[in-house]
């Protein structure tokens, strides 16, 4: 079976999972009262006055399967309901905040993966030496740190003491500038928009605000990569072809980089799925502490303000992102390891 048919089969398999995701979210909506549930169908502020109409129009006291049908229709037409806490439709609230989260995650993934691989390989090659002990200790400390506490301590130390790396996404002056007509929002990512508008200072400002959230996410997530990379590398170093490579007199560097590391990298691809989950969870806490206006902070605030439709909208989005991330991971895995697609 070729790669294309594997991809097609894998995409088909994704459909039942996505239906399951909506079923689960819908099951959760059945735990709330009809008035809060009505928020899931509202598109504008005016409709808030006619809650009873909404309840009867969408039959929120009808049998469950009828309600599910109507709800899924709403979702498919792009209506995720009304967010009470932001006074906006949920989809609008999510889509305006999504670029912020995307920017944060995009900047966090490369240091996490590259540094994680580097440290994992170092640790395995020098097993039971000082560097191995240091790396393992650092990784287990990162694994045990509460994300919110690390974020608070970093903020207190860097910003409170040295006025470096302030919270939120931009400084006041930059926020005012991007709301003028001279600034066109192409992507919603301030680092890129700054350059596209020929305003490098916006980019620099955005980067300064990204440093601490990125460091937080990296420290918390990197432990996983180090750990898996180390054990995968240790396993690979005991393989026959490594002995062959050494026996025919290849330099140590070449054996490690070309023969061992490449093959040891495969489990990291599988791990990327877990990394995606970790990032989705991590942004909720990180954005809240750093006052970074993305979808994670939006969900956390909505949850404390009992804005259920917003939280469920976020969960649905998170579920879909995670399912798609796993799809990409599986395809990448099949691409590098032919045994998967042929099996």
């Amino acid at each position, binding site marked *: 079976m070729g790669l294309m048919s594997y991809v097609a089969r894998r995409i088909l398999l994704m459909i*039942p999972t996505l239906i399951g995701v909506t079923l689960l979210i819908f099951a959760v909506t059945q735990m709330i009262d009809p008035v809060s549930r009505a928020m899931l169908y509202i598109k504008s502020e005016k409709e808030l006055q006619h809650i009873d109409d909404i309840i009867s129009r969408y039959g929120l006291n009808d049998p469950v399967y009828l309600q599910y049908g109507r709800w899924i229709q709403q979702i498919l037409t792009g209506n995720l309901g009304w967010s009470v806490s932001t006074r906006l439709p949920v989809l609008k609230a999510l889509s305006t905040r999504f670029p912020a989260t995307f920017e944060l995650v995009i900047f966090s993934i490369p240091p996490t993966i590259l540094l994680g691989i580097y440290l994992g390989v170092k640790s395995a090659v020098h097993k039971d030496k000082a560097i191995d002990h240091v790396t393992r200790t650092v990784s287990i400390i990162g694994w045990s740190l509460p994300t919110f*506490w690390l974020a*608070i301590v970093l903020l*207190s130390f860097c910003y*409170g003491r040295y006025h470096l790396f302030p919270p939120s996404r931009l400084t006041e002056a930059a926020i005012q500038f991007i709301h003028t007509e001279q600034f066109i929002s192409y992507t919603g990512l301030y680092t890129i928009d700054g350059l596209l508008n020929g305003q490098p200072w916006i980019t620099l400002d955005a980067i300064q605000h990204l440093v601490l959230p990125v460091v937080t996410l990296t420290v918390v997530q990197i432990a996983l990569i180090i750990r898996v990379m180390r054990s995968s590398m240790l396993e690979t170093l005991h393989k026959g072809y490594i002995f062959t490579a050494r026996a025919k007199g290849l330099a140590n560097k070449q054996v490690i980089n070309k023969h061992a590391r490449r093959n040891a990298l495969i489990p990291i691809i599988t791990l990327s799925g877990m990394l995606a989950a970790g990032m989705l969870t991590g942004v909720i806490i990180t954005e809240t502490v750093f006052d970074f206006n993305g979808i994670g902070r939006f969900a956390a605030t909505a949850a404390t303000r009992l804005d259920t439709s917003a*939280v469920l909208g976020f969960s649905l989005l*998170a579920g879909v992102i*995670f399912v798609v991330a796993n799809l990409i991971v599986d395809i990448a895995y099949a691409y590098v390891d032919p045994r998967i697609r042929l099996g």
Partner: protein
Amino acid sequence: MLREVKFSISRIMKSPLSIVGIAIVVFFAAVAILAPVLAPPRPNKDPFIMPRPKWDWSFTPRPPSPSNPFGTIEGQYDLFYGCIWGTISAFRIGFMVIIPVLIIALILGSVAAYYGGIIDELMMRFTDIIFAFPTLVLAIALVSVLGPSLDNVMLALILVGWPGYARVIRGEILRVKQEDYVEAAKAVGCSDLRIIIRHILPNAIYSTVIMASLDIGAIVLSAAALSFLGLGAPAGYADWGQIIARARHWIYGNPADPFAFWHAFIIPGLFIFTFVLGWNLLGDAFRDILDPTLRRR
């Protein structure tokens, strides 16, 4: 069996990190047991509510002093009391989540594995759906629907936690089912129930139960995160995550001293961090020891 246990213990004793882990967990257990002595609760009051003076509820935290060894937090709650009784909260959250999770997982996992067919299929598809969400995201959604409270945080963590273990137990049982000694037990005419209880379960769950109990660190971390977000324990409750949430306004100190209120977040944070680190070190050691492929290397 006994020889294996002895071997495991000798392996634990040889690894310095796991000894540190055991020491930390034992230390916290001692703190929890001695809590009524270390920080005596007021008579006729809920011991999990942190005490504060009746006449002084001022907002600004106070630094450590003889009457408040760790200082006070926002609202003049005594931080020392909160950290000590927070240890009991942490153990309570850990056990009250992991025990129901294990019971549900054990029952559903073994039913699915033993009977297979449609039951197995349904359970696996359900766990697939739960796995389609990052755990904390689903927990936040559940708590926001159930209403913020510590009980609902625990309930949410149970609801999102069991499918993972059910899967592991199912897999273990399927593996053990094919072992020769089960075949032998069948051949000598043992009943189904006897085979499950005497032969399959002990061999399948030994490692799972140990792994699960060592996940307590991760559970406490999730619960602390939810409390920090304001979805768990209410203000004044002896819960580490909640205490740190109250310190958020004070992390920049005052203009004269940026670290004026360091105690309000550094101390409770160190409690969470050390507690979780202890369980994780223990878990790490056990993972290496219990893994049969790494065991005797």
